[in-house]
């Protein structure tokens, strides 16, 4: 900017205007936030609730039925435990849902583009039905209208041999009981070594192909190793754990582990719903690779499988991954709908039951939001990183 001019009147200087506007906006924002906060604290105090974190250390006066990771003892476990259990249960159903929705979504997305007209139509009908009906309705439908009424009482359980049982209380599976900790570590080490070994094998195979032109069947060897090594390690470690099978006591099942029906229904609904969105992302990704790419690969003499592996999938994945990751985040946020069917995850347990018990609305809602914001910011950070890297490759 030229330095030596007639002075600009302040009200016509864009810098001054901009600073003035921003300061005014900031002041207004701070004022609104402060008023809201002040009112809330005051209103809570009027109801006899002192806002503070003190309650977190106190024992929670209610029972938590499903806590597979932490032992919950009524009267001993604190609100902190309740919060952690809520977060863990949210993560549990999210991870299970993400895995299943990815598999199902890719499967349906590919089917949607199948040359088979009938299959393509079925896949398309699946997508249009599942994504145009509210998820909450689907969750309630599966839980209240399908699983609860259709599944039998414990005494009439559907069994899979003597290992797994399904009834209206949930799915009973065998659970592992550790006999020797050292043996378990041996197994873990063996599995880790297998994974490292497979990575090294891939590198070696790649180098060998570069040098000699001979491809090596890495996938088949890797699959075999993944199956064989843990089994060998299990016996080599002296059978370090045994399975505790569920069995029918007079009225209910004992032993093993139980996946409660709401978790099962929630997982099922989240999976089928999210899969319809992932399927669309997959379809979009594959269609985004122009037909010319396939033709060019065929013209070079690559067969169908190699064309897919080397040309189509690498390009399609770049388009598929970002919306799919967003769907993972959506699935995690949607798991909060568990509140309708009483699966004990974060919103139900913490923002619902704990809030009602303590009345600490401000702290509890803030903590709940903070958990989701963290997940969300983490996801967008990852996506930004991924997109930046992708752009770098394209330049």
């Amino acid at each position, binding site marked *: 900017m*030229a330095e030596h001019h*007639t002075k600009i*009147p302040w009200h*016509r200087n*864009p810098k001054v*205007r901009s600073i003035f506007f921003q300061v005014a906006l900031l002041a207004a924002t701070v004022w609104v936030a402060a008023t809201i906060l002040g009112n809330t604290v005051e209103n809570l105090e009027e109801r006899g609730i002192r806002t503070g974190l003190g309650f977190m250390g106190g024992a929670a006066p209610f029972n938590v039925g499903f806590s597979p990771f932490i032992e919950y003892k009524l009267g001993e476990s604190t609100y902190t435990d309740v919060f952690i259990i809520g977060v863990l249960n949210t993560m549990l159903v999210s991870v299970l849902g993400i895995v299943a929705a990815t598999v199902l979504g890719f499967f349906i997305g590919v089917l949607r583009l199948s040359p088979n007209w009938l299959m393509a139509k079925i896949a398309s009908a699946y997508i249009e039905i599942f994504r145009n009906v509210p998820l909450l309705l689907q969750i309630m439908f599966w839980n209240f209208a399908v699983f609860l009424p259709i599944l039998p009482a414990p005494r009439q359980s559907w069994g899979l041999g003597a290992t797994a049982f399904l009834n209206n209380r949930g799915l009973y599976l065998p659970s592992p009981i550790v006999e020797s900790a050292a043996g378990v570590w041996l197994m873990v080490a063996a599995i880790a070594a297998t994974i490292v070994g497979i990575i090294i094998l891939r590198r070696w195979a790649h180098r060998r192909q570069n040098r000699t032109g001979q491809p090596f069947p890495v996938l088949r060897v890797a699959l075999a190793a993944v199956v064989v090594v843990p089994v060998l390690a299990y016996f080599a470690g002296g059978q370090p754990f045994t399975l505790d099978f569920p069995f029918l006591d007079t009225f209910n099942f004992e032993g093993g582990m139980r996946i409660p029906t709401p978790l099962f229904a929630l997982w099922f609904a989240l999976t089928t719903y999210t899969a319809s969105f992932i399927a669309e992302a997959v379809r979009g990704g594959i269609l985004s690779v122009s037909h010319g790419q396939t033709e060019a690969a065929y013209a070079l003499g690559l067969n169908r499988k190699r064309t897919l592996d080397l040309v189509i999938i690498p390009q399609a994945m770049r388009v598929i991954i970002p919306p799919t990751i967003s769907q993972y985040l959506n699935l995690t946020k949607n798991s909060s709908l568990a509140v309708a069917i009483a699966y004990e995850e974060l919103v139900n347990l913490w923002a619902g039951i704990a809030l009602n018990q303590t009345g600490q609305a401000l702290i509890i809602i803030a903590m709940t939001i903070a958990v989701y914001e963290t997940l969300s910011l983490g996801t967008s950070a990852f996506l930004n990183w991924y997109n930046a890297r992708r752009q770098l490759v394209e330049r």
Partner: protein
Amino acid sequence: MTTLRADAVNQAPNQDPRSLIIEMKQVNKWFGEFHALKDIDLSVEPGERIVICGPSGSGKSTMIRCINRLEEHQKGDIIVDGIELTADVKHIDNVRREVGMVFQHFNLFPHLTVMENCTLALIWVRRMPKKDAEEAAMKYLERVKIPEQAQKYPGQLSGGQQQRVAIARSLCMNPKVMLFDEPTSALDPEMIKEVLDVMIELAEEGMTMLCVTHEMGFAKTVANRVMFMDGGEIVEQNKPDEFFTNPQYDRTKLFLSQILQH
């Protein structure tokens, strides 16, 4: 590129600065680390027709975009019709009223008809009643020979017609200076002539024009000064016949030989 400055040839005729329509003094501009304009001095008298050429990235577009402050210069002075361009928003508004601009890609507003494109600034900037604005616009549409397209949308016109609308749109504001930023380079060959004809007519009526273009034929017929820029500097400027027959710098010679080959 030569780093010499051709002071002898490049000096604009000494003039009383108050009669100049555009005056740039030691203007500098950076894009980040990139030095886009280096100590640009330029004086334009009313009625002058200046053609600016040079390789891409030489700073010619940046220079004329500084004149109506689509780009902000960081050092030096720019005075347009006696108004100094500073951050002062009022000055910027005043300069933009006096300076018309025609872009390479027309930048017509696709959601408005040709007529609405032309009357927009008259109504909202000059605060003219709609009826008067439409009369004025029609006059200029007739001048660029497309009054019959007034009610169409830009998307329905050919490139050449769109560019003529863009010229009419600028003329509506009755500017003292017209800036042309490569007005023909986005056009198909058969449409270039219709746009150049309008520009020639404008020149003949005495409009002050600064035109970035590689249409050397146009430069020869119309310009009273041709300017060659490279590396953010004005390398050489002269009367057209001198400029084309007797360029002083090897860089200019090379450039002319490259673009005049075909």
